[in-house]
C-alpha cells in the first residue's frame, strides 16, 4: 500500500486535517457573521436577520451567494497585481495560525513544540495584506487605512507578545497542548490577571475591532483599506477578519481559560471540543458586546494607550511573574 510509506501517510493526514480544519473554520466564520449580526441587533433593540431560513440562519449563505455574484471592480488606476493578491494573501495568512490550535486533546493539525511562537509570528503577517490592499487600491482613504494598520500593529504587537511571556513562563513550554495541560486545575486568568487584561486589549486591537477598528473606521475613512473592494475580494477580506476573531478568541481560551479543561473534571475528547468551542463563543460574545457598546478611539489615543499603558503594564506583569516564580 502506498499509505504504508510514513511520508505519504503524514501527507495524507495533513491534507485531510487541513481540509477538515478549513471547512470547520469557514463554517464557524459563516455562523459567526450571523451570530454577530444577531447579537448586535439585540443590543440595538432590533430583530436582526430573520428572513432567510429559521431565525435567519441561512443569511450568511445568502450573503456569500450575493457577494459571489457581484461584479468584481478593479479601479482603473489601481496596482492590479497587488490589488488582486491582497485579499488572497489576507485569507491565506489568516488561516495559517489555525494549524497550531488544539481544539481538544489530539484534535490538532500540527502540535508544534513552539506553537505559540509560530502563532505570534504568522499572525503579525496579517498586516501585510492590509497594506497591500491599502496601497494597491490607489485611493487616499485606503492608504490612510493601511498606514493606520501599520501604526496599530507596531503599537500592539509588543504588549501582545509581552503579555504572553508570563503564561509561557508559568507553563514552562511554548507548546499549545502543554500550556493547556498546565492549566488542568487552575486557569491562568487567576494567576495572571494583569497579563490577561493586557492580552485582551491587545488582542482586540490586533483583530482591529471596535474600539480599535481604526483601519476601517467607517465614519472617517469610509471603509478603510477595503474601500475599493467588491464582490469576492471583499468577501475574502471579511472572511479573514472573522478568522482573526476566531483565532484570537481561541488563543485567549488556550492561554488564560485552560483550553478544553474544566477544573477537576476529566472530559472525553468530544466533550473537550465542545467545551473549547463554547469558551471561544463566550469570548467572541464579549467581543461583539464591546463592539456594540463602545465608540472608536482616535489614532493618537490608540498609540498612546499601546505605548504608555499596555507595554509598561506587560513589563510589570513579567516582573511580578518572575518574582513569584523565583520565590
Amino acid at each position, binding site marked *: 500500500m502506498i499509505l504504508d510509506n510514513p511520508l505519504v501517510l503524514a501527507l495524507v493526514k495533513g491534507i485531510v486535517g487541513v481540509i477538515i480544519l478549513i471547512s470547520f473554520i469557514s463554517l464557524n466564520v459563516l455562523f459567526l457573521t450571523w451570530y454577530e449580526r444577531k*447579537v448586535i441587533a*439585540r443590543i*440595538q*433593540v*432590533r430583530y436582526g436577520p*430573520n428572513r432567510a431560513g429559521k431565525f435567519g440562519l441561512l443569511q450568511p449563505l445568502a450573503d456569500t451567494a450575493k457577494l459571489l455574484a457581484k461584479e468584481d471592480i478593479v479601479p482603473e488606476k489601481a496596482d492590479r497585481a497587488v490589488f488582486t493578491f491582497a485579499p488572497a494573501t489576507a485569507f491565506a495568512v489568516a488561516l495559517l495560525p489555525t494549524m497550531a490550535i488544539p481544539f481538544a486533546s489530539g484534535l490538532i493539525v500540527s502540535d508544534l513544540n513552539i506553537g505559540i511562537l509560530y502563532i505570534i509570528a504568522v499572525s503579525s503577517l496579517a498586516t501585510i495584506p492590509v497594506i497591500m490592499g491599502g496601497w494597491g487600491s490607489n485611493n487616499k482613504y485606503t492608504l490612510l487605512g493601511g498606514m493606520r494598520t501599520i501604526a496599530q500593529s507596531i503599537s500592539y504587537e509588543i504588549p501582545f507578545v509581552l503579555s504572553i511571556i508570563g503564561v509561557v513562563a508559568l507553563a514552562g513550554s511554548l507548546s499549545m497542548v502543554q500550556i493547556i495541560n498546565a492549566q488542568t486545575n487552575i486557569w491562568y486568568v487567576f494567576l495572571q490577571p494583569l497579563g490577561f487584561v493586557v492580552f485582551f486589549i491587545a488582542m482586540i486591537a490586533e483583530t482591529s475591532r471596535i474600539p480599535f477598528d481604526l483601519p476601517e473606521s467607517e465614519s472617517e475613512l469610509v471603509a478603510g483599506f477595503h474601500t475599493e473592494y467588491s464582490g469576492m475580494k471583499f468577501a475574502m477580506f471579511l472572511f479573514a477578519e472573522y478568522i482573526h476573531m476566531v483565532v484570537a478568541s481561541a488563543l485567549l481560551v488556550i492561554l488564560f481559560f485552560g483550553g478544553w479543561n474544566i477544573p477537576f473534571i476529566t472530559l472525553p475528547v468530544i466533550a473537550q471540543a465542545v467545551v473549547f468551542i463554547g469558551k471561544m463563543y463566550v469570548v467572541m460574545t464579549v467581543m461583539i*458586546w464591546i463592539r456594540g457598546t463602545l465608540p472608536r478611539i482616535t489614532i493618537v489615543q490608540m498609540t498612546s494607550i499601546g505605548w504608555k499603558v499596555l507595554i509598561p503594564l506587560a513589563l510589570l506583569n513579567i516582573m511580578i511573574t518572575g518574582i513569584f516564580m523565583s520565590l
Partner: protein
Amino acid sequence: MVLKLSKIVHTPPMLVTLKHIFKKAFTVQYPEERLEIPERFRGLHAYYADKCIACMMCEKACPNKCIQLEISTYEIEIETPDGEKKKKQKKKVDEFNIYLGRCMFCGLCVDNCPKGALGMTTEYEFSDNDRKSLVYGIDRLASKEMAKEEEKENEPEP
C-alpha cells in the same frame, strides 16, 4: 456639566447595552406588521367625481403643477320652478390626472377644493417601475379609495 453631575454613579455603558439585549425589539417587520397610520396622514389622493364641479382650484393651488384637468362643457336642460325648460351649460371633467412623481403630498389641493371632491387616503404604497405609470387618472384614484371603503364596510360584519 449639569447632567454630568446630576448622577453620582453612572451605570457603565457595557451594562446599559446589556440591559437592552433583553428588551423587546422596537422595529417593525414591515410587510407583515405595519405602523398605525393616523387619520390626518397625507397619502394617495382620493377623487370623488360626483362632487367635482370642475372649478380647477386644485390645479391652481398645486405648487408643483402635478394636477391636470381636462374639461369639456355640455348642455343640459333643466326645468325651472316655473315649468320652463332652460338650457344650461355645465362643465364636466373628462380627465383628472395626478402625477405622483412630482407630487409632494402637501395637501394644498385638498384644502382648496370648495366641494370636498378631493381627499387624501392613508394609502402609501405606490412605488412603480417607470415614471409614466405614476400618472394616476380617475380610475386609479377612485378605485383605491373605493376598495378602502369596501373594506371598511366589510369589516364590521364579522
